[in-house]
């Protein structure tokens, strides 16, 4: 019985990789066939092959836009991480500041960023407005999760620090922040995807103003020109960017926690 287990595990592992790929290939094949058989023109629905051709043909344009969007996303993400963690630490050190500011953090979070973006574009230069949108959607999960983590310190460990006369700073650095780390990383993983969404929303909102050159701007612009294959190609790049961001942050999470946190442990070999 137990001798069969490694075999079964390996088969399961292989299936987990193979099945989504099979679904993808099948889906693309059906799409390609349907477009060809029904003779659908590319400005209505381009076939996957056509999208791939466009991706290659327009690569220099699209790659530039991708870099612009990624740069904004990255800046927004870094600011959101710093802002979220910073505010959470500030809140944990002072009740008064927490009571004063937390409601506004919630308001920023619950107001749809699509609705804020046009206003921001009026008051801020476009680059800053896009950045602000990325920040607004991404900072809250970092703030909320880090706050939860800072409040989830083991009470006996807190007693131990008190017993040995640890200062507030030492308690924060040696106890609270490490305790909060898994929560913080969970917040960052959400924030990575959200800052991409924030950047895209702002670019779309700015689209008609025409000054941008990010991927979302490319999508809006291609839409006006009925360049549907390019819209798909840009969309594909956005998805890939989102996936890469997610996996990079998951990797960071794993590297930081693998030695000690339950969430990052692999089953015993």
């Amino acid at each position, binding site marked *: 019985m137990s001798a069969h287990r490694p075999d079964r595990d390996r088969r399961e592992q292989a299936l987990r990789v193979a099945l989504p790929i099979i679904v993808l290939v099948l889906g693309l094949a059906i799409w390609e066939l349907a477009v060809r058989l029904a003779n659908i023109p590319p400005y209505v629905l381009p076939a996957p092959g056509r999208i791939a051709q466009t991706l290659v043909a327009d690569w220099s344009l699209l790659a530039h836009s991708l870099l612009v969007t990624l740069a904004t996303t990255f800046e927004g993400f870094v600011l959101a991480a710093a802002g979220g963690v910073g505010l959470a630490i500030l809140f944990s050190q002072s009740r008064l500041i927490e009571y004063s500011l937390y409601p506004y953090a919630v308001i920023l979070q619950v107001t749809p960023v699509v609705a804020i973006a046009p206003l921001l574009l009026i008051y801020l230069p476009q680059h800053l407005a896009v950045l602000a949108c990325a920040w607004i959607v991404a900072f809250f999960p970092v703030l909320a999760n880090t706050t939860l983590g800072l409040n989830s310190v083991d009470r*006996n460990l807190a*007693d131990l620090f008190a017993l*040995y006369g640890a200062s507030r700073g030492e308690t924060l650095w*040696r106890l609270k922040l490490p305790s909060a780390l898994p929560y913080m990383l969970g917040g960052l993983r959400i924030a990575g995807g959200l800052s991409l969404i924030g950047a895209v929303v702002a670019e779309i909102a700015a689209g008609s103003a025409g000054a941008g050159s990010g991927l979302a701007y490319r999508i809006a612009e291609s839409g006006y020109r009925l360049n549907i294959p390019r819209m798909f190609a840009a969309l594909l790049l956005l998805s890939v960017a989102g996936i890469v961001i997610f996996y990079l942050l998951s990797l960071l999470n794993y590297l930081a926690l693998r*030695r000690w946190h339950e969430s990052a442990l692999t089953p015993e070999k």
Partner: protein
Amino acid sequence: MAAISSTPLVALRNVGKTFPNGVAALAGLDLAVQPGEFVALLGPSGCGKSTALRIIAGLSEPTSGQVEWSPANGIQQQNRIGFVFQEPTLMPWASVFNNIALPLKLKGMLPAKTAERVEAVLERVGLRQFGGAFPRELSGGMRMRVSIARALVTEPQLLLLDEPFGALDEITRFKLNDDLLRMWQALRTTVVFVTHSVFESVYLSSRVVVMAARPGRVFREVAVDAPYPREESFRTSAEYAGFCRQASQTLAQAMAAGGQA
């Protein structure tokens, strides 16, 4: 009442503790701990023995009465105490070495001196080659050893243990009891050990303080006049069985008294 031969290291005088919700955890508690002795606090759950320990450690303030240290001047309370919690209470993100080094780092000890002290205490608890391991890689008994090592690393005058071996299996528990006795004798420190096990309290201590509940107070003491070092032979002796019977009976009386109060 046992004859008091010298000035106690620490004494609780008429200590009371009422929690904000109105529950009286302790009332009129008197307890004097002599330098170098091994005292066990034995009682049913809810008799306030952990609260008493936390008050000695300064983790909780009594609502009435005093805690007296001797000599009263000089050394700060926190520099005198090592505390072992019910759970190992280790930082999961830090190696065994860094967990044990924590109290020294918080005192600002230099790294070289810290390392020396940590190595020495690791040796003492029998975990010399485990400094680099993480808590989750250790067994329950080994984690408790790390916890004891951390409490000992500051070379405290008073070691407080709050039901430290309650969650361990009996074999591990016996082993740790023996090791604890050996360390206590080698270090000539003072120990207050909270437990709800009659057998453990008698095996370890020279004095079992039996507590009654509602409100928590000292009911009666049982002196365990058996010489140290105590080893496996003591555990199976008629003498040991006699003390256990005596402590059990006292505990039963304390529980009956606690029920009415």
